[in-house]
């Protein structure tokens, strides 16, 4: 049947038989009938927005399994820092900075925080009790998620509690009434206790060091007490990677706001805001409503005894081994990774013991772990921790220190192969404090599946060790994670430093590892502070806008065209045209500034009524935009006094929170 090829008649027959008018799609109508899915999408978007911003703060990892937890945890710890700092030393801003970790460690016992956070129209609650003295913690958390129900995907609210008693972490799902346990290696208990204090201090120090960068923007009364409002603003930047390159945009913006009593140093309220772009209003993301220092915790709050009637997913005796982050990495595709022990050496290299599994094949066939060479490639475990990135330097695009992973040894216990790997930074890093934080790059190698995703979704906290205590910790960890319990001779401190030195010269290894991590790195967002001169209150913007308009017309009247052009946002030749035309206006010398409506970033300036051509009078409505700390005229709109209100209404519709500054 050769007729069918390029046979128009046959083509027409087929088109007629199956075809019909092109179907039309009405998205607005579709939205009306798919509100549930839109709700889930909005909830996911809120989560995404929050999880991106989390990487900023870099703070807190204990409870950060979900992105929601991450934000709230970050915010909570930042808040903790302020609480402590202000309550200890409010009247001096510089004196306390270097002492903060010590102050926290010595003076603080239990800190209690209660906060609300907001996601896709939901108001949710969180509560933290942190016993920094004994290294225990409790976290109550309400979150929003989605799960498959009888009618498809549905939005659900869930509640969890994480309790850490110094050795065991108990994760309670109050919604599903389940309990699971994790536990630290016994050799990691002491580091954990010390790190809990260090973690709070060090995590918040970057911002505390910049307290002088906060601006007092006003005052407020809370429960009859007067508080100063302090703010600092940030914008989103990313580390950059292969897909979209470095992101360095003015929006979205993030803002911390602290209400501090000038009399006592009490922090009355702390709020974290988000603004997606210039035209949107600020949205509240997290707000604390209770802060207590040296609080008396409820009895037994740090006890890890399973509540009655709950289903136990495991027992303490079979608890997952967790590391200093008290968590296990689990992907939805069934990939898991634990890192029970992690240590930082004096050159900044990080020694991590990890076990990467998949639900279907465990840690994979033994062959994966055979024929490995000390200092060679890592085993292709089903889940592989293949590289690290420094967390401290994440705000410097293109500067992130990348760590290459090299194999040291393998131990086996209870059907699990533990890889001991050394992660070597591109250059030596001096270790500050007693712990370091890294972003972990994880890849999936299940030979039966094609999943190849990498996620920067995990933190690794490592305890700083020295040549003196190296053997003590490593020997003890090996004892707990090996059936043989023998520490190989190669695992000597100096050997590892020598290996690191050798690897640092291997640029090829760094290049290939960085390439492999590029996509994952793309997703890491961080915050860079917005310069103080770029920020302004509506009062300030209104003042600047008034001066700008007055200066502009003075320049026009004086014939200083170049100066006038510089005050316009218009590009040439339009700017010159505007100035030339403006000069011909008969009433130009009589123009005065009247009412002003202003936000933190723009203003609408209304001029007085003036007589222009042919005896006709009118007013100017002049749009002013403040960018990077400078106000410029964006647009002129001439209209009659009667119709001016329409212009004002239009502006207020776009910026409902703009403030009115009447003509003095």
């Amino acid at each position, binding site marked *: *049947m050769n*007729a*069918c*090829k390029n*046979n128009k*008649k*046959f*083509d027409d*027959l*087929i*088109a*007629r*038989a*199956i*075809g*019909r008018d*092109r*179907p*039309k*799609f009405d*998205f607005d109508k*579709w*939205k009306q*009938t*798919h509100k549930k*899915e*839109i709700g*889930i*999408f*909005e909830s*996911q*978007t809120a989560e*995404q*927005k929050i999880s991106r911003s989390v990487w900023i703060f870099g703070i807190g990892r204990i409870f950060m399994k979900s992105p929601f937890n991450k934000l709230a945890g970050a915010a909570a710890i930042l808040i903790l820092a302020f609480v402590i700092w202000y309550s200890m030393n409010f009247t001096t801003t510089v004196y306390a900075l270097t002492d903060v970790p010590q102050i926290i460690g010595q003076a603080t016992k239990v800190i209690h925080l209660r906060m609300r956070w907001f996601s896709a129209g939901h108001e949710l609650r969180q509560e933290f009790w942190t016993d920094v003295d004994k290294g225990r913690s409790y976290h109550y958390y309400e979150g929003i998620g*989605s799960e498959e129900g009888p009618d*498809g*995907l549905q939005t659900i609210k869930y509640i969890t509690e994480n309790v850490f008693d110094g050795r065991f972490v108990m994760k309670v799902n109050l919604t599903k009434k389940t309990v699971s346990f994790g536990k630290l290696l016994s050799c990691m208990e002491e580091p954990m206790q010390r790190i809990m204090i260090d973690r709070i201090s060090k995590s918040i120090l970057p911002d505390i060091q910049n307290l002088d960068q906060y601006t007092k923007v006003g005052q407020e009364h809370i429960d009859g007490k007067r508080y100063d409002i302090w703010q600092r603003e940030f914008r989103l930047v990313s580390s950059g990677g292969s897909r979209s390159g470095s992101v360095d945009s003015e929006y979205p913006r993030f803002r911390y706001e602290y209400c501090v009593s000038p009399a006592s140093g009490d922090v009355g309220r702390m709020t974290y805001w988000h603004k997606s772009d210039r035209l949107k209003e600020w949205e509240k993301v997290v707000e604390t409503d209770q802060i207590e220092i040296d609080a008396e915790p409820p009895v037994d709050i740090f006890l890890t005894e399973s509540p009655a009637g709950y289903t136990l997913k495991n027992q303490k005796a079979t608890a997952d081994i967790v590391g200093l982050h008290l968590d296990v990495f689990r992907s939805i595709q069934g990939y898991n990774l634990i890192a029970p022990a992690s240590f930082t050496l004096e050159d900044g290299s990080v020694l991590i013991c990890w076990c990467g599994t998949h639900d279907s094949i465990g840690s994979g066939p033994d062959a994966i772990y055979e024929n490995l060479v000390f200092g060679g490639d890592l085993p292709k475990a089903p889940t592989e921790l293949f590289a690290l990135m420094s967390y401290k330097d994440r705000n410097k695009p293109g500067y992130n220190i990348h760590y290459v992973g090299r194999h040291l040894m393998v131990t086996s216990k209870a059907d699990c192969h533990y890889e001991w790997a050394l992660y070597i930074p591109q250059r030596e890093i001096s270790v500050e404090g007693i712990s370091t934080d890294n972003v972990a790059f994880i890849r999936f190698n299940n030979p039966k599946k094609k999943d190849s*995703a990498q996620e920067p979704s995990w933190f690794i906290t490592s305890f700083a060790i020295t040549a003196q205590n190296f053997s003590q910790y490593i020997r003890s960890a090996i004892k707990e994670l090996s059936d043989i319990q023998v520490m190989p001779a190669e695992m000597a401190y100096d050997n590892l430093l020598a290996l690191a030195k050798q690897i640092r010269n291997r640029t090829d290894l760094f290049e290939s590892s960085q390439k492999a991590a590029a996509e994952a790195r793309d997703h890491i967002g961080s915050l860079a502070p917005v310069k103080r001169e770029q920020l302004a209150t509506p009062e300030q913007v209104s003042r600047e806008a008034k001066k700008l308009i007055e200066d502009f017309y003075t320049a026009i009247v004086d014939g200083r065209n170049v100066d006038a052009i510089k005050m316009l946002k218009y590009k040439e030749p339009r700017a010159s045209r505007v100035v030339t035309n403006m000069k011909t206006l008969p009433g130009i010398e009589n123009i005065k500034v009247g009412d002003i409506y202003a936000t933190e970033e723009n203003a609408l300036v209304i001029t007085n009524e003036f007589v222009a051509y042919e005896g006709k009078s009118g007013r100017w409505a002049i749009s002013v935009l403040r960018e990077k700390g400078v106000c410029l005229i964006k647009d002129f709109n001439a209209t009659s006094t009667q119709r001016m209100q329409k212009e004002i209404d239009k502006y207020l519709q776009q910026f409902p929170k703009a403030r009115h500054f009447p003509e003095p």
Partner: protein
Amino acid sequence: MPERSEIHLIEAAIDGDIESFGELCRRYYAAMVAVGYAVLSDHQLAEDAAQESFARALVRIKSLKERAKFAQWLAAICRNVAKDIIATRAKQIRTEDISQVDEVENHDENDRAIRRAIEQLPESAKDLVVLRYYDGLSYEQISSILGISKASINGRLTRAKRKMADYLRKNGFPESRL
């Protein structure tokens, strides 16, 4: 206003812009109806499948890793939705009901014969024919939806039509009309 690029729309949708997602739906609606029709052979059900596939895509779009394969990904969802519809209907409607529906639509005999010829094609060929003739998509668009090269579309389409013609001839379709 210039038309926004597809990748721009996909990125914006992943970032939470529902209107960008809407624009993608508008662009792909007819194609997805065609994909649904290839499975369901029913215009109304195919539209239902396309709309439901958008709902499933919306709640999963944030996990889309390969932006360039958006159309292919959407088509796969739509195909699954259409199969789910068949499975559901199989439980609800007896065969007689389906044939009654067919009668009601009152297509002429030639059209039914052609549709039967399409029905007997392998799934991949059926998709190809329907996309080409239902919505008149270009080879480039078909390529992005089915994930096959433009060069192979031509060959596969020719082979599919040849199979259809053979089937029609065997079933007494007038040679003069082919």
